[in-house]
């Protein structure tokens, strides 16, 4: 039987997901002084330390500062129990409602409270249900609204004045939601259905050796693959990227055990291929130089696409260093870390891979030409692109070579539904672009 002891606790250095109703945000809890901004609310995270993940906290106003766009409120967080969270309708005990909207006029005078009154109210009471109660009391039309419309009104107000946040542990599912909602470009436009299919078609699991090339998904694609490889298994991942430093935010946020993190070998595409074909002729510089011959325009290299990036790679690069501290003491002039990673990657390349995944901003054609020979026969190949035309060309090229069979070019249609008694319908907005997947199996 699971006990509370099984639930992991929030630690300093963790990435956390802050959820306020449907809004979620990924935040690093770096120190006790860390604050998080949710719109006009600033949250002091101090009190989260050592609390179990999944807990709900109440936002308590500490001070209100005038900001650029209205008042910015600073809150402390107080752990609260589930029972404090009741539906506003229940708390307010609303009973009467109208049949339809024939008596309701939009004259802007339905609410008798002035904005100043509401602002004052907000500072005085911590409880959103009290604020909403006052709003309802002072609304001339509320009780004439239909029950559905009342509910909608309450939900809208609740959203605005909701004073609870939940702290959750990041997972691939939660992070993809956050990244895709904030800016789908952050994950190269890989939508949830598409990511789920990349994982399926690639066959990535606890056994085998996998090869991934991606040009910038904030670490989400390698994180998703490493997550599927799992802790305490024998699977390995070689993660090739075009920049000097791999994007690793999502990988760090998963807080995987060290042994699992170390089974993801992140290497620069150019430098590792040079190492693979030409052996240990790598230059004695400390930085893996992107080969100038590779006509790679500088601006497409996602080295620091987000502000969080430099900080994001910290935990991963630090931990292995601690581990290597012994060898550091013995011979301080060991080869640079990237060089060791290249060596590990080339060993895996010589042993050949059990699957290849390519999610490139570049044309996938040349990348496949370089990486396909590293894949064993009868193994899946998955290529993602936001652009169908690139995959059409690649489809034909692969078909002509005869080295890949079972080729399919697919896209997806995804629709979410509101399902409520007597009010079931598709959501008003839907995403129009899933991106495209080219899948197939290698032949001998």
């Amino acid at each position, binding site marked *: 039987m*699971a*006990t*509370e002891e*099984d*639930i992991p606790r929030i630690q300093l250095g963790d990435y956390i997901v802050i959820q306020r109703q449907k809004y979620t945000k990924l935040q690093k809890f770096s120190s006790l002084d860390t604050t998080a901004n949710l719109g006009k609310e600033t949250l002091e995270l101090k009190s989260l330390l050592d609390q*179990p*993940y*999944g807990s709900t906290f109440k936002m308590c106003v500490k001070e209100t500062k005038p900001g650029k766009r209205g008042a910015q409120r600073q809150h402390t967080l107080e752990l609260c129990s*589930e029972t404090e969270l009741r539906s506003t309708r229940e708390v307010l005990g609303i009973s009467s409602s109208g049949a339809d909207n024939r008596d309701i006029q939009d004259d802007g005078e339905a609410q008798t409270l002035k904005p100043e009154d509401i602002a004052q109210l907000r500072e005085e009471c911590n409880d959103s249900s009290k604020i909403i109660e006052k709003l309802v009391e002072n609304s001339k039309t509320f009780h004439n609204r239909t029950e559905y419309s009342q509910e909608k009104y309450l939900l809208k107000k609740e959203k605005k004045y909701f004073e609870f946040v939940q702290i959750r542990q990041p*997972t*691939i*599912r939660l992070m993809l939601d956050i990244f895709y909602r904030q800016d789908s470009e952050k994950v190269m436009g890989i939508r*949830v*259905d598409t*990511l*789920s*299919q990349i*994982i*399926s*078609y690639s*066959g990535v*699991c606890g*056994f*085998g050796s996998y090869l991934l090339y991606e040009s910038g998904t904030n670490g989400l694609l390698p994180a998703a693959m490493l997550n*599927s*490889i*799992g*802790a*305490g*298994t024998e699977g390995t991942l070689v993660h090739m990227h075009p920049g000097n430093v791999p994007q690793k935010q999502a990988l760090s946020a998963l807080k995987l055990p060290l042994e699992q993190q170390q089974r993801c070998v992140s290497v620069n595409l150019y430098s590792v291929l040079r190492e693979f074909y030409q052996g240990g002729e790598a230059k004695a510089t400390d930085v893996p130089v992107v080969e100038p011959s590779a006509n790679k325009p500088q601006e497409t290299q996602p080295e620091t696409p987000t502000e969080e990036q430099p900080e994001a790679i910290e935990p991963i690069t630090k931990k292995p260093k601690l581990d290597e501290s012994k060898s550091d003491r013995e011979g301080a002039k060991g080869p640079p870390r990237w060089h060791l990673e290249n060596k590990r990657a080339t060993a895996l390349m010589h042993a050949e891979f*059990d699957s290849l995944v390519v999610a490139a901003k570049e044309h996938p054609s040349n990348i496949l030409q370089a990486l396909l020979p590293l894949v*064993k*026969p*009868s*193994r*899946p190949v998955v290529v993602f692109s936001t652009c*169908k*035309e690139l995959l059409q060309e690649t*489809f*034909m090229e692969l078909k002509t070579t005869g080295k890949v*069979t*079972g080729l*399919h*070019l*697919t*896209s*997806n*249609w*995804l*629709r*979410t*539904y509101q*399902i409520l*008694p007597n009010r*079931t319908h598709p959501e008003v907005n839907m995403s129009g672009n899933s991106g*495209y997947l080219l899948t197939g*199996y*290698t*032949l*001998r």
Partner: protein
Amino acid sequence: MSFLKPKTHIEKGDVVILYLSVSSMHAIEAVPEIVNKKGETIPHIFQTNYGSLKVENIIGVEYGSKVELSKGWAHVLQPTPELWTQTLPHRTQIIYTPDISMIIHQLEVRPGSVVVESGTGSGSLSHYFLRALKPTGHLHTFDFHEARADQARDEFRRHGIADFVTVYHRDVCNLGFGAELDGKADAVFLDLPAPDLAVPHAFKALKLSGGRFCSFSPCIEQSQRCIQELTKLGFNEIVSLEVLQQENVVKTRTLPVIDLEFLKLPKTDETTTATNALESKTPKEVKKYLTSSNPQTLPGHTGFLTFATLPPNIPKA
């Protein structure tokens, strides 16, 4: 034994995918002899549209190789859950890769996960669960049809993945998942005609630290009743959605280029007009385009997927 991990050569007893074309694939068992209807042991010969295959000959062959048929050739591939789903013997309606991928993602299944599934059906989804959770997790799968449960159990054993799955013959709507699974599951999946009846059992089976839930229903009324039950028991993050995958058929099209410009010029004399007319009917110039289009008929509906989260520390008593 070919579902456990990636392997390079066909061994006796492997399930092998015989790939003839995009629309023609067969799953065959690599055994040299089979028992026919009369109870006699005979050599295993497999018939295809391109002639027969003596199955004995493919044992020891490298996966991904081309093999000779009596009237053509085919490729032998190691089965994956994706290929298996397209070739498995249907005992029930099955769920396909696009829905399954979404289920695995939303249920957050990874090595070590404990998953409860009902019903087992033809085992299409079970193979994906097993790939995702092995070698450290476990699948508990239930079906109320005894023969189906037995067939599935036998299949998992022959596929080399029996260590990670327990198959139960039980009607979970009435009897639940059993006390031994109380508080053990990270995720519960239901594909039942009345999922709402099994939701309270799913609630009991999920860990106290919380977990994920999914129900697949072809009809929206089933989802509605299921959601009412979920809400009552304190599940949150309830989302219903539909995924449809569309094939893009890639083709090179050769199109004639019609020249209409010459019509603007007056006729010069009769002979050139004759040649012009001839030319316009058989244009010299053609252009090649690489195109893709959706097929004439597509799957328009599979089912509604309803997902929900059981938050941690909800008292179960």
